[in-house]
């Protein structure tokens, strides 16, 4: 499944990042790479973006970008 399906509180492992270059690189720098464990912390009040726990810190990502991140729950 993709990351946008992850509900608040659920955990998953990243399988693949199918993102364009500057964004992919930025996420890798933040610690989001294949094999990383990720947890959904919650959604913003308007429903998008959502916050995720990556490598011990909270990072907000938009739904459109989450659709391109493959995870396994």
């Amino acid at each position, binding site marked *: 499944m993709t990351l946008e399906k992850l509900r608040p509180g659920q955990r998953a492992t990243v399988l693949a990042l199918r993102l364009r270059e500057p*964004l992919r690189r*930025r996420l890798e720098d933040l*610690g989001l790479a294949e094999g990383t464990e990720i947890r959904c*912390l*919650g959604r913003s009040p308007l429903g*998008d*973006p959502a916050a995720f726990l990556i490598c011990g*810190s909270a990072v907000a990502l938009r739904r459109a970008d989450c659709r391109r991140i493959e995870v396994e729950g």
Partner: protein
Amino acid sequence: MERTVALAGNPNVGKSSLFNRLTGLRQHTGNWTGKTVETAAGRCGSYRLVDLPGTYSLRPGSAEERVTRDYLLRGEAEAVVVVCDACCLERNLILALQCRALCPRMLVCVNMLDEARRRGLRVDCEALSRGLGLPVIGLSAREKGSRAALIAALDALFEAPPRPADPGKGAEEAEEPCAQRLFEESRRLCRLVLRGEGGAYGPRDARLDRILTGRVWAFPVMLLLLLGICFLTIRGANLPSAWLSRGFASLGGLLRRGFRALGAPAWLEGLLLDGAYGSLSLVTAVMLPPMAIFFPLFSLLEDAGFLPRAAYNLDRPFQACGACGKQGLCMLMGLGCNAVGVTGSRIIASRRERLLAILTNSITPCNGRFPLLIALLGMFFAPAGSSALLSAGLLSLVLCGSAALSLAATALLDRTLLRGESAGFVLELPPYRRPQIGRVLLRSLLDRTLKVLGRAAAVAAPAGALLWLLGRVQTESGSLLTVWAGALDGLGRFFGMDGAILLAFLLGLPANETVLPILLGIYGAAGGEMPEIRAVLLQNGWTSVTALCVLLFTLLHWPCSTTLLTIRRETGSWRWTALAAALPTAMGLVLCAVAAALGK
């Protein structure tokens, strides 16, 4: 000999706090990623320290990361201190590992140990030093002994022979997609040196975020904070304003008597007292107090880590306008100063989205325009004797309106000149930090006061003197000021204002806080406290429609000269700079014309 040492590290690991502690300088600090976008240098013992913008890696993503990377590659610094956040070591070590390949003299500084202890984490710095093959020092930047400890570590670093390192190869390695290898090494090191469970973002942060970014409370809390800040600004400014105004008046009286006793010529008395001193005292008395109160309060929110949450909550509308959510952060910074908001746009990686943020930033009223907005609301829209709460509510409304206008301008640009796809959005939500309330308040109060006073002396006083002169230079049809104001009058009236108001906005280009003093100067009045100012404006034919149009034009006109120069520097183009001035001005004129037509 002085040795140059660079401070590098991930964003928001407390580099600037450490830098301030070490050098005694006052770099602005705040709890959000990307606060430092420019390098700063200062002295610490026999070292020259350079504070670099935060970067996650040496593979450059955004403009401010390129600054750090290029600086390190040039090899100007004889040594590099890589500052790491103890709470977030796994990610921070990746940068340290990349730098290790690049820098022959390098020290790793594990910062925020106190914070980590509170979160139940312990870092074994000796084991880390063995694992990395580099000297490691553990610090808490807020503690007093940190300066001496770091200097000692630097001394030791320079006594030891440099390690072999190959900048060329290091740079190549940093380019390579070798992320995986670095992750694994960093993970392995963390297993060796970390004791305890927990990360930077803990349960306490999660609890706070459930409220502050939750569906129910996020917007009420943001509105309450906005209202509260506006209320404290308006309420708190009244007293000091009155004191300053009276103080300046009696000092002015004394000076006048002094001038007369010395037998100074009338023109000198006019130029210095009526011109320069009058304008200086008006800027200080009316404009300074709201600015000196708003800014520190805003700094508190910034220090606590609230600003990124506001950007997170408000990202959806930015998405709809094709903009980056971080533009919200730039707008919030613009509330303090548009030039800072424009420079801050460096946190946005995509050029298109960055231009959107730059071109629309001046629609957010900066600190220098606040006092004028407050004065207009107080004099014309809040009934006499009503509470400061009503004015605060009105001001909050105006600020929300300006945000909506800014978004509208963004949407317009996104659909015309700056079409393109979203480049994606990644925003870090830093852990909440208890702001050092006393320190933040005192420091930013002092900073702001000094800055405004400096600008008042440098801009308002000469402007006052010049205005006085222009008011005295006679032509056939009156003084130069009246002639110019008369020439602009037809245009001004069409837009619901008058020639004097337009002239004041034009002459106020160097500093927005001087618009009201200049206007009073053109009207030929000295000013004073609010009721007197209101009387002057009414005498000159102001109605509530005039006030509304001036309010709209205050929100929407050209940015001040400092901001314009900053936009030129950041975009590298006079054309974009011209557009950044033309866009808000055009919007302002249209709205004013509509308001004036409806008002009739």
